[in-house]
């Protein structure tokens, strides 16, 4: 018998409110930052209310095309982001990780998925009406759905995203999306609003282009965007894809960064190190990393696998194909499919275009597909004379690394960069 867990969604909402109040009275806070926290508050409040009001909740894994859920006016629950936010806002995941292990999840399974399973099992996050998942981007996402269906006693749909990007594979994936829409219509009793989906595709184009424009502004020296601000860009796409709130946030941010560039004002007081960030820093160390970056004059200026979108735009006149196509354009798609020269050359080009001094690779011990690239990326970056620091960590599990370890590694790395 799994012990009932505390309501983690309520904890996130409470923490969001406190941070929002602090940000709103902080004279140095960005307006976009306020909007970002309002969006987070909105997302999780909607989820909590949906649970209380019996609305249809569709849980989905990372990179699942949640545009479909939004176009059908269902309530999405991004499972990995929810686990990250539990770690970020409550600083505590041990209870849900332990609950995951009690459900039979091996400790080698990445903590966000282990935690997610545990959180469903001990009732600390709402049980969904459907579980939706895909194989984008790793085996953990591919395999996470069926146990959740069993625990939550709900139906589910697995969306099979082919490995490569031939026309046939893209057509197969679009058919998968169509099939999933039919599944959702049956389960929810709601019909897909294709006009709404077209609008979302249109708005997604605006969102992607704004992100590209923001990245252009980050090329400036000093960089105008906060050291770990890229996580905001990542999160809004995960939680609000193709939504007006995203565009509003990005337009505000772009305006702020444009002004900062005009005033030659950097995000950190004395920019010394321009960094490329590879993969996700530990959520529970975020405040500490932000402080360390500001004190050291370090700022992340580009993230090839998180914020650097692929070329092209979506075709809103074919909304299902557009949603499918987005899966091939997202920055993380470079890590899926054969990791060929294109991805490696993109990294090198990013180094040149964003004047990168060094790279930081957050090696999540539970993430096999990313950690297997450490050596390859280190060698690739060495070709353009950029050193790479690897920090062993876990995105949510606090037992893997400490502030002291990270500080020591970061400080040594900054000394190395300084010497160069």
């Amino acid at each position: 018998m799994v012990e009932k867990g505390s309501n983690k969604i309520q904890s996130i909402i409470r923490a969001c409110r406190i941070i929002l109040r602090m940000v709103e009275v902080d004279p140095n806070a960005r307006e976009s930052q306020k909007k970002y926290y309002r969006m987070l508050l909105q997302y999780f409040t909607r989820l909590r209310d949906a649970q209380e009001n019996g609305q249809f909740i569709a849980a989905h894994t990372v990179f699942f095309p949640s545009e479909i859920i939004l176009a059908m006016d269902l309530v999405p629950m991004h499972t990995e982001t929810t686990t990250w936010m539990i770690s970020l806002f409550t600083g505590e995941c041990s209870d849900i990780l332990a609950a995951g292990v009690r459900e039979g999840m091996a400790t080698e399974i990445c903590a966000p998925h282990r935690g997610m399973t545990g959180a469903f099992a001990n009732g600390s996050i709402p049980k969904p009406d459907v579980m939706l998942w895909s194989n984008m981007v790793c085996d953990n996402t591919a395999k996470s759905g069926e146990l959740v269906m069993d625990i939550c006693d709900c139906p589910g749909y697995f969306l099979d995203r082919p490995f490569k990007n031939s026309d046939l594979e893209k057509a197969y994936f679009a058919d998968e999306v169509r099939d999933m829409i039919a599944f959702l219509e049956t389960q929810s009793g709601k019909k897909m609003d294709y006009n709404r989906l077209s609008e979302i595709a249109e708005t997604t184009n605006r969102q992607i282009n704004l992100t590209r424009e923001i990245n252009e502004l980050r090329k400036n020296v000093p960089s105008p965007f906060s050291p770990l601000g890229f996580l905001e860009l990542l999160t809004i796409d995960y939680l609000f894809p193709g939504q007006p709130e995203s565009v509003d946030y990005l337009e505000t941010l772009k305006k702020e960064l444009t002004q900062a560039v005009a005033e030659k004002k950097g995000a950190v007081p004395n920019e010394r190190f321009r960094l490329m960030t590879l993969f996700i820093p530990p959520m529970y160390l975020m405040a500490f990393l932000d402080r360390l970056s500001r004190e050291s004059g370090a700022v992340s200026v580009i993230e090839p696998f998180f914020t650097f979108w692929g070329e092209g735009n979506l075709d809103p006149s074919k909304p299902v194909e557009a949603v499918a196509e987005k899966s091939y354009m997202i920055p993380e798609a470079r890590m899926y499919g054969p990791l060929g020269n294109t991805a490696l050359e993109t990294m090198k080009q990013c180094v040149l275009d964003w004047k990168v001094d060094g790279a930081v690779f957050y090696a999540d011990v539970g993430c096999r597909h990313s950690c297997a690239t450490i050596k390859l990326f280190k060698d690739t970056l060495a070709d353009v004379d950029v050193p790479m620091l690897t920090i062993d960590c876990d995105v949510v599990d606090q037992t893997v690394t400490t502030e002291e370890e990270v500080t020591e590694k970061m400080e040594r790395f900054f000394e190395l960069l300084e010497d160069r």
Partner: protein
Amino acid sequence: MNNLQQQNAPSSLEVFHVVNQTFPETAEIREWRNKGNKVYGWLCTYVPEEIIHAAGILPIRITGYDRETELVDSDAYLYTNNCSFSRSCLQMGLAGEYKFLDGVVGGSTCDGARRLFDLWRQYIGTPFYHVLTVPRKYTDSALRLYLAEVEQFKAHLEEHLGVSITDEALTASIELYNQTRSLLKELYNLRKLPQPSITGAQVMEVTDACFRMPKERFNVHLSALLEELKESTVTYSGRARLMLSGSVLANPDFIGAIEEQGGLVVADELCTSTRYWGDMVDNSGKEPPLAALARRYLNNYPCARMFPSEERFSRIVQTAKDHHVDGVISEIIRYCVPYAHDLPLLTDRLKEADIPVLSIDLEYGSSGSGQIATRVQAFLEMIEAKKNG
């Protein structure tokens, strides 16, 4: 080989044992190459070997070291959170032990395999390289996609070699490989008997050799072994009849260690055995050979990567029943995530069928000594207690 297997082991087994002793570049492979022929390595059971064979190439399976060993180089390239199977394969590649390969073919089957390919291409290099997209579903559209991938693979191979792979050649290769499957099935049927004439460890010597020599020769030797086993008066029994299920496994010593404890391994669900030879290719001519190959490979006894998992679970339960199994040992290589995810649900399914499960985490190449032996011993005691009411 441990004592249990050495005593009265069938003499026809020796040829397979010799092949495995000379792995990776076995005498059979050297002989093939000395005639000026090419050898391609494949990784994962979703690669249709017949196409490689029909091009006049010897397909062999890439596996890692059959023993516990240091993986210093591959740990640096693949990081220790990748499964030790992919690290062991990479280690052998980096050490030049697969330098005789003229090509490498794989499928997009799991994280470990796809990253192994990425690094193989970057750091080892082989004249020919191909990765097939393998859908994770059994639907008609998945089959169409996989067939297109198989066609593309054939075209790539033809272009690279400057040859044409005819339907006649494919049909002949399918025939040969079906014969292998049929013979292996016959071998496994012998294990359903109350007192089989072959142990689990001995069977693994056979299946390992199957990947490391031409099928033409393998079939001859396996036929001889089957004849010998049918005539044999030697039989084996144990404290319990066991089935192995889970990750890739190629070390007969691991099974030997279980059998030393008194368990008799009579069935398995491994990609180096049942999941390899499980289903036949329909060679009746109802559909073109490539279509028949695609249908068989996608719908074969499934890997944990496939959806829905129930297809795998129900086959495992059926295999366990067919072989009158008392218990299942789930062996999962650390960081083999697809199997780790399946384990809780599979355990429930087996318990529903009143089949107890022992779950063991291990590293690829493990010989099953120490802690594993202790756990197997306790599992056997539990099964005996259950049997005795």
